[in-house]
């Protein structure tokens, strides 16, 4: 290989790397520095290696951290329970409606995230038909759905559902139907074929979907702001309030880093179990 050929990949990488350095590494550096400073807007900030910012952040807001991961976890499970059958139906049963159904999954993106979330305020209004039904079923003990955990989780589920459906659909679409036929030939029941063929082969889609849903959901604050009430603040709300309301920049930065670290650790553990192929997309058919 000539030098020129060997350099090609680096040239191709350059724009992306440059982007990452300017908009990821450098801000990260400043945020890291800020998270170890003490001071106020009035007096200015001074680097004092205040690791206490981190311990304070975690001990004081552990409730909101736990709540965020709980909400995000529940929403992810719901997304999977709703998304898997949906993706399955689109991939195998939709026939000529396939493209239309896929379009329907993506269609909400044509409106902004904020507007869609605010629309849910109307859907879950105290006097809306939806809430009347829920009240009748005894599912709204306080007489309202807005400003409860349920509303926030519903909002998260709704907003992140497409991120679950699309990778699942891609995985299911690539599934070789002949394998299912082979399973039937070998007298496997429908359930057996599903659990022993379909599910394992679509695992990469499931894992990608879970990551794409869980990570942004855990850091979200829009749903909690609009659909939640007073006891539903997530860690995103805490960070927002720290930055913009209290202007305690150091602790806000420490909180952001902590959130990032927790997610990163969770991700690494998860990858350890699930394998990297699952995260990066699959090559298994090749073998």
């Amino acid at each position, binding site marked *: 290989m000539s030098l020129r050929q060997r350099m090609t990949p680096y040239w191709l990488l350059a724009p992306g790397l440059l982007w*990452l350095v300017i908009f*990821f*590494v450098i801000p*990260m*550096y*400043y945020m*890291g*520095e*800020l998270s*170890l400073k003490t*001071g*106020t*807007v*009035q*007096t*200015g*900030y*001074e*680097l004092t290696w205040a690791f206490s910012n981190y311990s304070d952040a975690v001990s*004081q*807001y552990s409730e*909101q951290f736990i709540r965020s991961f709980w909400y995000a976890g529940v929403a992810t499970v719901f997304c999977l329970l709703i998304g898997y059958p949906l993706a399955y139906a689109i991939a195998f049963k939709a026939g000529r409606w396939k493209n239309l159904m896929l379009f329907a999954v993506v269609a909400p993106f044509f409106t902004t995230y904020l507007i869609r979330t605010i629309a849910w305020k109307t859907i879950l*209004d*105290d*006097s809306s038909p939806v809430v009347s039904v829920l009240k009748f079923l005894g599912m709204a003990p*306080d*007489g*309202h759905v*807005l*400003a409860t955990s349920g509303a926030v989780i519903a909002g998260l589920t709704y907003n992140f559902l497409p991120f679950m459906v699309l990778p699942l659909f891609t995985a299911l679409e690539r599934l070789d139907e002949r394998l299912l036929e082979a399973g039937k030939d070998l007298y496997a029941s429908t359930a057996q074929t599903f659990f022993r063929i379909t599910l394992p082969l679509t695992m990469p889609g499931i894992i990608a979907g879970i990551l794409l849903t869980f990570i942004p959901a855990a850091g979200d604050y829009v749903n909690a702001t609009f659909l939640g*009430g*007073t*006891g*539903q*603040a997530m860690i995103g*709300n*805490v960070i927002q*309030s*720290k*930055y*913009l*309301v*209290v*202007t*305690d*920049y150091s602790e806000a930065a420490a909180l952001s880093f902590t959130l990032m670290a927790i997610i*990163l650790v969770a991700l*690494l553990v998860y*990858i350890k179990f699930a*394998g*990297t*192929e699952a*995260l*990066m997309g699959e*090559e298994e058919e*090749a*073998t």
Partner: protein
Amino acid sequence: MTNIKMKQIRLLALGVLALVASLVLVACGGGGGGLGGSDNSDVTTASGGDPKGSLKISNWPLYIDGATIKNFDKVTGTSTTYTEDVNSNTDFFGKMQPLLSQGDSGGRSIIVVTDWMAEKMFKLGYIQKLDKAKIPNVEKNLIPALQSPSFDPNREFSVPWQSGMTGLVVRKDLAPDVKSINDLWDPKYKGKVTVLDEMRDTIPLMMAADGIDPVDATDQDWLDTIDKFKGLVSSGQIRKVTGNDYIQDLANGNVVAAIGWSGDAIQAQADNENIAYVQPAQGCSIWSDNMLIPVGAPNAAAAYEFMNYVYEPEVQAKITQYVNYVSPVEGVKQILLKQDPALANNELIFPSEQFTAKCFNQVSPPGDEQQVQEVEQAFEDAKLG
């Protein structure tokens, strides 16, 4: 396959390395520079000049009528960009602080914030003093009640935009018996009431309702009341702590009573006649939003011209007709008496002394910045539940 796996692991490792590297950089970099840290020892007076060119104003939403800006441009030959980007004092401060601390106003020549925030920004050296010779109409027409507020006794750096009252906004049909702040905590209204997310709106009213004079309240009074507030939040009595959006919840009945602003109540009444402002039995809190010229304002001359312009009673009357808040300009009532008598006789727009007898000027917690921030922090934590 293993080859691919190796590469992928390497990629991930690289990512982690980048993160670690950034932290190490922090360690080596250290010290110096960055955010904050200024005082007002070197406050300048905004200079005047020829009021042409472009003028950028930041104000709150729905706070001006449709014609004033156009007319101003026509009369003076300026080209004004009027942006409604102030939604809350604290959020606006959070956004502007990094700029203002560098002596940059982001192109703005006028910003409008509430009294306490005006004071805070001035103390930080973010606001310029005014040359009163350039604003004769303000000198002439500012109503006496607003001429010497405690935060700026000589009106050296602030000019009131509009004033208003914080009190109760209720649905007369759904909560007819709410007359005092403490009526909101009636168990039958559990999950049906909201309060404002600005601490200085909500907490002093709660203190007054409990017989504490907000003007002389101690740090401990604030913290105790915030404690009570926290209890009401976690019990679910208070459904939500809101900004402007409480009005929609009142309109569709999700909320039956709220701590809210007088002007909102009049505007909402136009759509739903059951919405009304109720003066709390223990009094209301009175505040003003003020026009300020920030440091780095590119066109102070046009800013003066604008301040002067909106203090013409005829111009102000149009704004009052639209925003329905208390006007700071003398002579507006006389004009409106001819044009719109109902408005001119509205106690919320032209309050009588009797109507506001028990009201107090909006207050901040006592003490230095450190103490104030602690109280603010307690309030924020209570809100987060």
